């Protein structure tokens, strides 16, 4: 049988009724009125408060932990340490995960959990934490990834050997997890053909996803060991499988219910409180709730990779890019997991370049372990690449968009990582950028304008879902992929389009891990695409079943029935003169036909369409203080098809705001002692509303033919070029293009003075 993956049934001529409109999200009402239940809103009778004791040192051996005094504090029901977690070998996936949840041999960052307490009140828990005695042997620490690569750097893990190197280097103790070379052609020869060569060194700092909802969970364990977990997560099934691995539980003995998610952006793909709350609940024999404070979120959960890169690019006089050479270094915290391989794959994927050499390194260091953030590791390197691309265009006197158009990839491009693209929309996106109002308007006096482009793969993967028709003809959709940005509504809309009924007759909900099969994490911009495939497939199964039931009710052959606009009708007058049967007409009589009508679908979804974006930014810079004002910002991006244009715009705008923060002010500031200095929103400077202009959006729609509605993921593409575009704009305004993030006022003021000294502005 042909599957929807082989035959998605995309029809370019179809006129949509629901898709392309922007109805109010069904989950929106509860969110604006405060009724929505986020993780911390959960409550169980008799639940205890769980609190962490965290390491005050960035790097130390734990010599001894004594919890005897803490256990005696009135109200304390359980104290747990490393001794309460199953031993798993260090340097393995599970070994790393359990050590992130609770330190074992060593603490690896300031804030690394070393113990946890469950008590009847928060004050009792805090009292107990103060009575836990931990003896540390403090070790030298290293946070900067370049320093961590040096021969004299403190070594985090004695067992670590660099993957991807040969010879004596492969035997050495090191902080380098992996060296990866990804190349094509011959870069050295390519540069010989270049008329213009440009190069730069770039660095970026760790920044946090900045989700507003802190991690929170409640764990409850029954007397026979059944674990119930309520938490905020982008990855319920991934959590289940990893929790069962590190806690040695059967998957059937743990049920995870995802709550409403108050932001994730990749940061809620990894668990923190969950294993600890479960172990506390097991020991205390009572439900335990653990909610991180904002300080703990910044100190204890994963910021992105800081990076250092050296990039060289060469082009011919006509603008053809002929060679690239890049060395990229990614900081990952104490354990691997930065997803740094994305960077060499995506950094140039939008340009046709014959000769490329990239060498990437992932390096451990004494900061919280990296967690994902929209297009992990890609925006940091695009920051450098697009600076050089703009420099080449400028030096050749070419229009910024024309230069990029000259090198733009089209359908049939074979990527450096081996994939061959079907229909892509980069050229169309560049054209739309060139003709948009922002690009055609002159740059206001005193301001600088920057252009940058970005790419993200977009993903598919394992997805399951189901759909049930109620007797009144309405539908419930059950999804497993976490809704990080309104995907439930997009699912309802796609189903409504399939059935030809109003979207208000359909509700989408999120299942617990016992109610559906495995769902991959909501990440990689995969959810609206992948679950959308599941929903359309399930809807089509229900429609086929409705036709079968109508045929039965009319006593005609199945092929004599067609379905349109929510009704079964005779295929022609030859079939008979039957009045159309509505979904309700059929659903209310299932007792007399063959029982309930449901659809379900399970797939390893393929065919995600890659996405491309162009950002156009105007800034002004106070030359006496280095303060940047972002004055105008336009994102032009190919969405394939915007199911709900308002939600797509929201994705673009949110990415621009996060990019502005990352570009200008957000960074983890560590003291000499390795302690985080700015663990709070007062000094971790995310943009506030008045820091950003209205972000304009242009949605380009070059359909992805592998999806029934042509859509492409839009969650990550729009962050990829953001900092590059802002830096290019700042460079135009001050005369020197910044190479270090964030472009905070002290750094920029120095650059402005340097530019003045060189007569550049």
């Amino acid at each position, binding site marked *: 049988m042909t599957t929807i993956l082989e035959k998605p049934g995309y029809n370019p001529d179809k006129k949509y009724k629901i898709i392309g409109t922007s109805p109010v999200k069904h989950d929106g009402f509860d969110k604006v009125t405060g009724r929505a239940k986020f993780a911390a809103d959960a409550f169980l009778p008799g639940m205890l408060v769980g609190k962490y004791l965290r390491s005050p040192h960035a790097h130390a051996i734990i010599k001894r932990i004594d919890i005897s005094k803490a256990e005696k504090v009135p109200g304390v029901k359980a104290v747990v340490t490393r001794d309460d977690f199953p031993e798993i070998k260090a340097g393995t996936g599970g070994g790393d995960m359990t050590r992130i949840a609770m330190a074992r041999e060593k603490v690896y960052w300031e804030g690394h959990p070393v113990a946890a307490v469950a008590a009847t009140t928060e004050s009792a828990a805090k009292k107990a934490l103060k009575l836990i005695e931990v003896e540390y042997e403090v070790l030298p620490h290293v946070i900067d990834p370049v320093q961590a690569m040096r021969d004299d750097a403190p070594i985090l893990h004695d067992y670590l050997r660099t993957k991807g190197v040969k010879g004596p280097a492969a035997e050495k103790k090191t902080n380098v997890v992996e060296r990866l070379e990804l190349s094509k052609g011959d870069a050295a020869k390519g540069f010989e053909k270049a008329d213009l060569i440009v190069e730069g060194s770039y660095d970026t700092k760790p920044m946090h996803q900045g989700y507003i909802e802190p991690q929170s969970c409640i764990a409850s364990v029954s007397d026979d060991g059944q674990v119930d977990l309520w938490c905020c997560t982008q990855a319920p099934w991934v959590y289940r499988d990893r929790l069962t691995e590190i806690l040695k539980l059967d998957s059937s003995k743990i049920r995870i219910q995802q709550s409403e998610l108050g932001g994730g952006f990749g940061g809620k793909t990894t668990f923190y409180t969950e294993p600890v709350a479960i172990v506390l609940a097991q020991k205390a024999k009572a439900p335990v709730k653990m909610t991180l404070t904002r300080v703990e979120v910044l100190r204890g959960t994963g910021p992105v990779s800081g990076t250092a890169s050296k990039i060289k690019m060469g082009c011919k006089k006509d603008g053809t890019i002929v060679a690239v050479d890049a060395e990229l270094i990614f900081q990952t915290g104490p354990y691997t997991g930065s997803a740094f391989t994305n960077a060499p794959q995506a950094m140039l994927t939008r340009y046709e370049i014959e000769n490329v050499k990239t060498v990437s390194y992932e390096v451990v260091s004494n900061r919280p372990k990296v967690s994902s953030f929209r297009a992990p590791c890609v925006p940091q390197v695009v920051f450098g690449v697009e600076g050089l691309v703009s420099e080449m265009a400028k030096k050749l006197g070419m229009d910024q968009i024309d230069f990029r158009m000259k090198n733009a990839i089209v359908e049939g491009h074979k990527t450096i990582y081996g994939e061959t693209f079907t229909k892509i929309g980069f050229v169309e996106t560049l054209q739309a950028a060139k003709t948009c109002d922002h690009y055609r308007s002159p740059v206001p006096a005193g301001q600088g304008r920057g252009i940058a482009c970005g790419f993200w793969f977009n993903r598919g993967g394992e997805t399951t879902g189901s759909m049930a028709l109620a007797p009144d003809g309405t539908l419930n959709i059950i999804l497993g992929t976490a809704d990080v940005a309104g995907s439930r509504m997009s699912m309802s809309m796609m189903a409504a389009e399939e059935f030809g009924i109003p979207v208000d007759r359909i509700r989408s909900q999120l299942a617990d891990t016992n109610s559906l099969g495995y769902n991959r994490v909501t990440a990689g911009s995969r959810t609206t695409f992948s679950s959308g495939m599941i929903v359309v497939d399930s809807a089509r199964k229900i429609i086929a079943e409705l036709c079968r039931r109508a045929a039965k009710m009319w006593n005609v052959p199945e092929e004599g029935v067609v379905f349109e606009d929510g009704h079964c009708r005779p295929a022609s007058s030859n079939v008979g003169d039957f009045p159309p049967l509505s979904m309700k007409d059929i659903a209310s009589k299932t007792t007399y036909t063959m029982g309930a009508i449901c659809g379900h679908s399970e797939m390893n979804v393929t065919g995600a369409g890659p996405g491309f974006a162009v950002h156009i930014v105007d800034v002004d810079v106070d030359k006496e203080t280095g303060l940047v004002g972002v004055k105008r910002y336009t994102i032009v991006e190919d969405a394939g098809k915007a199911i709900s244009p308002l939600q797509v715009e929201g994705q673009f705008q949110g990415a621009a705001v996060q990019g502005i923060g990352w570009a200008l002010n957000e960074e983890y500031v560590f003291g000499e002692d390795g302690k985080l200095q700015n663990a709070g929103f007062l000094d971790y400077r995310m943009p506030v509303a008045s820091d950003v202009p209205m972000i304009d959006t242009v949605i380009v729609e070059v359909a992805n033919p592998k999806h029934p509605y042509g859509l492409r993921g839009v969650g990550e593409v729009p962050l990829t070029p953001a900092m590059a575009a802002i830096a290019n704009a700042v460079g135009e305004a001050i005369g020197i293009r910044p190479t270090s993030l964030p472009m905070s*006022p*002290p750094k920029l003021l120095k650059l402005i003075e340097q530019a003045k000294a060189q007569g550049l502005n």
Partner: protein
Amino acid sequence: MSPSSLLARRAIRAMMARTNFNEGVEMPDLRYEAPGSLADAVKALAAAGGLTRILAGGTDVIVQMETDLIEPELLVDIKKIPALRNITAENGGFRIGAAVSAMQMMDHAALCATFPGVIEGVKLIGSIQVKGRATVAGNLCNASPGADSVPPMVTAGAIAHVVGPNGARDVPVEQIPVSPGKTSLAKGEIIESFFLPAPARNSGGAYQRFTPRTEMDIAVVGIAVNLTLDAGGVCTAARVSLGAVAPTVLLSKECADALIGTKVDEAALDKLAAAASAACRPIDDKRGTKEFRIKVAGVLAKRVAQKALERARHIA
């Protein structure tokens, strides 16, 4: 979460503990009192053995408690003392009660018209929600060198009226903070009010700060200038105050001297900028570097003096 609901939460916790809802939990350490008179407030503070905090808006105290920076034994809420919640005209100036919120000041038309520089500082405190509760007295007594309302209060010549177990005294506001987080107030002493004296004829005040964000941020540098002109446009008196560049808010005589006797022309402004930079004794920290603070203090001093000059000339 608003300070009042945080307090409510603490109160519920305390109640649960008292009623032995959860077996074995001790009495909470924190006491909360809300006396109706200043005398009772002074008495309560003077009698306490451990750490005490006066609770006005609570926008610093509650946050410090929530983040475990302080664990006071006693909180004395002064918002129930009626006299402390008034703004009253006095001898051409204004007296502002210690429990008057920033928003109350910003809504007072006559106060805003007379002291635009002070209001510029008040407007920059926290967010709208924070300003609904925060007080200038709290901003001062938190003793942060970056407090936005303090430099313009200093340049306006504000006097704090302090009441304590041994009677009352008047103290220039610049003498209240002594180091980050520490004040010159003795045990049991409370600021009852501030007096902002009537501005001289042809005088003007202004305040600006530098922050990387437009709002919800802490000053990296804050500068207030107050200057008075004679009929010929010559500056006869000036006060210049610098925030966030030393352990306490500074009142700089050298900066004032750069302006006095001049027409506040470019040369005087350059001298002011140099004096402002020279007055800085900053540190490198998460909010800015030493070098940056010193430079920007000069830049801001010029800009603020120009604004004050416009106001003195009645342009603004």
